[in-house]
């Protein structure tokens, strides 16, 4: 799995490309924690190229959400793919993490 980020006007966009699983989940946590430590607390995780997510990956996303909230910001997700969407619905996490069609729209209303 490959991570990258880009600081935009009102938020930082994190791209996670590949499979978000037991092996890559801790790396996502670490990566997002670093981005927050770098001064961005409004994070959009762009899942456009995340084809798969398991329970560890989901745990990492919620962990990152917690970190962002603790820093006084928020974490949102965008461009969710079918399998990831199924996992979110099944676990009711879609109520916590709202999925936006694109990264640009995630913070457009506030």
């Amino acid at each position, binding site marked *: 799995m490959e991570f990258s980020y880009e600081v935009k006007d009102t938020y930082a966009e994190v791209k996670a490309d590949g499979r978000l699983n037991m*092996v890559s989940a801790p790396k996502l946590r670490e990566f997002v924690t670093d981005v927050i430590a770098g001064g961005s607390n409004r994070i959009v995780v762009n899942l456009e190229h995340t084809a798969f997510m*398991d*329970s560890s990956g*989901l*745990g990492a996303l919620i962990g990152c959400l917690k970190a962002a*909230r603790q820093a006084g910001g928020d974490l949102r997700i965008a461009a969710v793919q079918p399998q990831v969407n199924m996992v979110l619905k*099944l676990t*009711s996490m879609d109520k*916590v993490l709202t999925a936006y069609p694109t990264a640009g729209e995630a913070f457009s209303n506030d």
Partner: protein
Amino acid sequence: MTRFWTRVVVVLTVLTGLNYIAWRWAASLNWDAWWIALPLVVAETYSLIDVMLFGMTVWKLKIRAGAPQPPHDATVDVFITTYNEDLDMVLTTALAAQKIRHPHSTWILDDGARPELQALAEQHGLGYVTRSGDWTKELPRHAKAGNLNNALMVTHGEFLLILDADQIPEPDILEKTLGYFNNRRVALVQTPQYFSNVPASDPLGSQAPLFYGPIQQGKDGWNAAFFCGSNAILRREALMQLGLVGYVKETGKSIRRALAASRAAIRQARKSADVESPLVAEVLDEVEAATREAQEEVDAGRPLSEVTYRVRRRVDAAVQTLVEADVAALQADLEEIAAMELAHVGESGVPVVADGAVQRMSARDWSPLGALESVQAVLDALTVERSNEAQPVMPLATISVTEDMATAMRMHAMGWESVYHHEILAYGLAPEDLKTMLTQRLRWAQGTIQVLLRENPLVQKGLKLGQRLMYFATMWTYLSGFAAVIYFAAPIIYLLLGILPVSSLSWDFFIRFIPFMVVNQLLFAVAGRGIPTWRGQQYSLALFPTWIKACTTAARNVWFGRPLGFAVTPKARQSGGPSWSLIRPQIVVSVLLAVAAVVGIMRLATGLAEPLGTLVNVFWVAFDLVVLSILVRAVLYKGYEPAAEPANREES
């Protein structure tokens, strides 16, 4: 009587042959020209072994008086296999099959899944079978063997008559053959394959009177007559037993392989820096314990289904613990977030992950263990479902493109018996052009070599020595391409360069060679009882590029997993003019032979060569050219014209 004289000639052939070859090895090699002397003596030894195996075959020539009365209640399915053949042809065969007198069901096995053919079948009250949904795109289809295996799962006759789409059966084909199955050990009755669209001169060598005659009758004597894909009746019970034994063997093999690989896979997973969580380490411990226990159980001979089930249960439980831990951590995070700012989490409080969701997240396709690919691969292989095949039980062997021979050999190895019934009971259509004929011969040769390399009959448990040699004999004949090249090269080398592979062409040579050659030809004449065998002898040499290509492609396929470049034999004549390019290597060889003869005679005239050597080698060249000349007729052959030939050639 025939048998007695055949045996006399066999003994004479073996004696004169050994006498000649022993002398060739011991006293005749021209070591100065070892590079041609050795290949030639090896080729001659190859030919002697070939003749000795033929002699052994006809030694036990079995002429059967006919089958006893069949039981009236024997149930039979008639299978007509088709892929892309002309619908009229398939329907003609199917309607003839419908008229077979013994009660039976007729099925068209359409691998082309053509709706028009299905409609025709329904219209005429014929059964129609295509591949079931289990044969998905990514699984191997196994050509005709797969087509038959698929049909075996949806039919239930005790016996199966298998017919190619062009083989029109006689109405009495079952009455004449079913009685052999009164012997409970008989699993196969093969009848000849005869072609009705072949002129008496048979320019493409389509009829195989020596094979569907003395050779199969001789193999029958050794209980080794084998299945040739069509015009044969098989006992379903034997096929199913074959499928089940194969399934158990394959499953056991893959489970043992997976268990052997598991230790390394787990070690590798532990080592990878990615896995730091103590929980993951625990799961790996559990997987290791489960596979170790499974290994002990497999060694103790416990049923594989139970062993694999237990492994899966243990691993599933461990994975579920992992998922539960993930969910618990996630839930704790959510609680913390809620404590910080309740409003954001939602109106109904912190969502709770349901048990069902945990189960789903633990299933194989979503399991966190999937991240450890090597471990997951081992666990996937620990199944008895044979998920790499469309159906777990494959009665017809799928190790070769000639599934028929491989299947028969496995049947014999399990103790079943076979029968060759020497009477034409179906009339087929042979290829009518050289290109199609070459494709067909290549396929047969490739399939035979595949069986040799995958399941060498000489070392198959369960086969008697005679049976081993009978299967080996057929495979041995397909190596003739290499010998042919040497037989063409030797006279060219002498006539052009004056290099003789034997130390001298003297009385010693002729007194040993000529008796062997004479008795050898006599053997074919006596064993063949007047059958025309010359066409077959010509093609066994003339098609040397095909035989060599078959050996090399089959070896690459078996050893390196390369594709064979397999093509289904088209039943319709290929259009276009004479295609000389198909026999380019043979044309080159013929030109070389002719040039060599001219040069040789010139060398003789100028005193550079000696008369006897030149005479023998020019004679040899002439023989080679006569052998190769059949290809000219084959290229020019325009297909069968029934008007020019008597329609009924049954008496031949």
